[in-house]
């Protein structure tokens, strides 16, 4: 179990982690989600005793990392930043780690086999592909057969095969009753991997709940509707048991010259709203269920990203990002 309590870390003027508290329970995969720069890596470094917090504590099974008698037998960690000497072979990297914990040489071969690196065990780590490096990092994390695992962006840059491998590995380890904390900035990845989510933004806790709950809370029953006849539609929606609120324009450009008004409807599915509109011959310009996980995540973390997120390349342009009326602040 990992317990983080009132953790704060400042680097100069910048607050990386801001009075953060959460608990990571054993037996499930806990996703640690947040946009880049949200403080995920810093939090992990604080838990692992690499950096020192300004306030607060982080403990693993009730102890500070430094107090663990043989830390790698209790905690395994994969950090996002590289921590391997490129001139050293994979085997020697694992060997020096094993020796600090009094683990036998045979354990090094075991974990090399476990991650599928036995054939390149005596190659210098500098020649490894990203996927192989990631596997070596996993091997190091599993070396002491730890009960607690912290994995920082483990699937970053991996091919689909590698992603699947890590995903299954984490699930398997959680099934064995271990405590798994895995960070990611990708909501979709977490949705299929994690049982439980801790979402942070700008170093602060945004939401801490089961994955289903987080998704449900942020996405269901929220439909974006654009219509020139908002008043009439609102009446119908209210009569049907839904709630309609004027959608905020969110600073985006207004829809091109038709005077249509944006509504955010909750409590009714998109299909029902469409039926209502059709029955009253109300014209709809847009009817969008806010259902994508990405959207839910952006909703959760809106206002908490470090770098501007508007007009992200590759995203369909969304002139009116829905600023959630629920689930956004907690």
């Amino acid at each position, binding site marked *: 179990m990992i317990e983080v309590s009132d953790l704060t870390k400042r680097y100069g003027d910048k607050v990386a982690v801001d009075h953060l508290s959460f608990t990571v329970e054993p037996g499930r995969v806990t996703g640690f989600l947040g946009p880049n720069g949200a403080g995920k890596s810093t939090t992990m*470094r604080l838990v*692992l*005793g*690499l*950096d*020192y917090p300004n306030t607060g504590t982080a403990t693993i099974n009730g102890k500070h*990392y*430094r107090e*663990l*008698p*043989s*830390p*790698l*037998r*209790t*905690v395994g*960690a994969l*950090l996002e*930043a*590289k*921590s*391997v*000497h490129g*001139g*050293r*072979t994979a085997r*020697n*990297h694992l*060997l*020096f*780690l094993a*020796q*600090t*914990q*009094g*683990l036998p040489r045979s*354990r090094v071969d*075991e*974990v090399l*086999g*476990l*991650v*599928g*690196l036995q*054939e*390149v065990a005596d190659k210098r780590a500098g020649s490894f592909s990203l996927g*192989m490096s990631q*596997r070596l990092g996993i091997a*190091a994390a*599993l070396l*002491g*057969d730890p009960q607690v695992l912290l994995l920082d962006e483990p699937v970053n840059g991996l091919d689909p*095969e*590698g992603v699947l*491998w890590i995903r*299954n*590995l984490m699930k*398997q*380890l959680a099934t*064995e009753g271990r405590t798994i904390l895995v960070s990611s900035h990708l909501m979709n990845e977490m949705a299929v991997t994690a049982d439980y989510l801790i979402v942070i933004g700008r170093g602060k806790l945004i939401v801490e709940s089961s994955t289903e709950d987080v998704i449900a809370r942020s996405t269901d029953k929220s439909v974006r509707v654009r219509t020139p006849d908002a008043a009439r539609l609102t009446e119908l929606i209210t009569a049907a048991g839904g709630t309609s609120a004027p959608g905020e324009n969110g600073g985006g450009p207004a829809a091109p010259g038709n005077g249509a008004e944006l509504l955010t409807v909750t409590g009714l599915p998109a299909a029902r709203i469409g039926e209502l509109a059709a029955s009253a011959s109300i014209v709809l310009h847009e009817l969008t269920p806010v259902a994508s996980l990405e959207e839910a995540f952006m909703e959760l973390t809106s206002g908490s990203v470090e770098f501007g997120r508007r007009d992200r390349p590759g995203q369909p342009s969304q002139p009116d990002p829905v600023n959630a009326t629920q689930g956004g602040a907690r």
Partner: protein
Amino acid sequence: MTAATPTAPAQVPAAAAAEHRQGWGGLLASEWTKIRSVRSTVWTLLLFVVISIGLGALFTWLTVANWNGPRAAPRDARVILDPVGFILGAGLGLGQLTLCVLGVLVISTEYSTGVIRASLLAVPRRLKMLTAKSVVFAALLLVVAEIVVFGSFFLGAAILHSHVPVALSDHNVTRAVVGSGLYLTVLGLFSLAIGAIIRHTAGAITTAIGVVFVLPILSGLLPGSWGAHINGYLPEQAGVLIGQSQPAAGDVLSAWEGFGVFCLWTAVLLALAGYLLQRRDA
């Protein structure tokens, strides 16, 4: 590369995990693995051996070849006064540079490659890690340095024999030879401490070389007896005294005093390195 199906990691007995504490044996073995498994160690030590023994022999041979030559008299007199100091100094003056580099690299590459994070995750009691590293590095250097100084001495003595016979049994000669190995070992630790304090390879090497090679030249320009004293207490100036069988004119410290001063410098820097390692974010 084939994807291994995830299987349960082999069981490490839980009781062992609970009881196990990090012993020094494991930590020393770990640091030894780190040092021996990178190429820079082998190359720098090889360079150290070649430069120290090779240049020592070359300079000694040139001196012998030019014995009684024009304007060689003062130098010949110095060789006659302190033959062992001359033989060792000829090669080690430059050879010790490689140990400064190696001392820095042993710790600074942990930072440049990020291995320091893995190291400190494995050994979160950071002073233990630094101590184990220092002990292993010192042991390695002691063995290599003693081999080099003895090799250099015997080779130089053989070359010099026809003009100035010198043997280990001569006054202070054994102390000078063994002591030079000790000096080189401590110099390695001195550089390691600088590497641990500065944490960047280039900056640390520049600093170590500056302190060892450049500072004595600058302080040598200081006038008067206080200038001589400052110069005499500088790490390298004090440390090399142990390699002389006879005090040279103007020495402000005896051989062992000088070595003691050098050890003190090193201890202070190592203490500072340990303090900063404990205090700073890794």
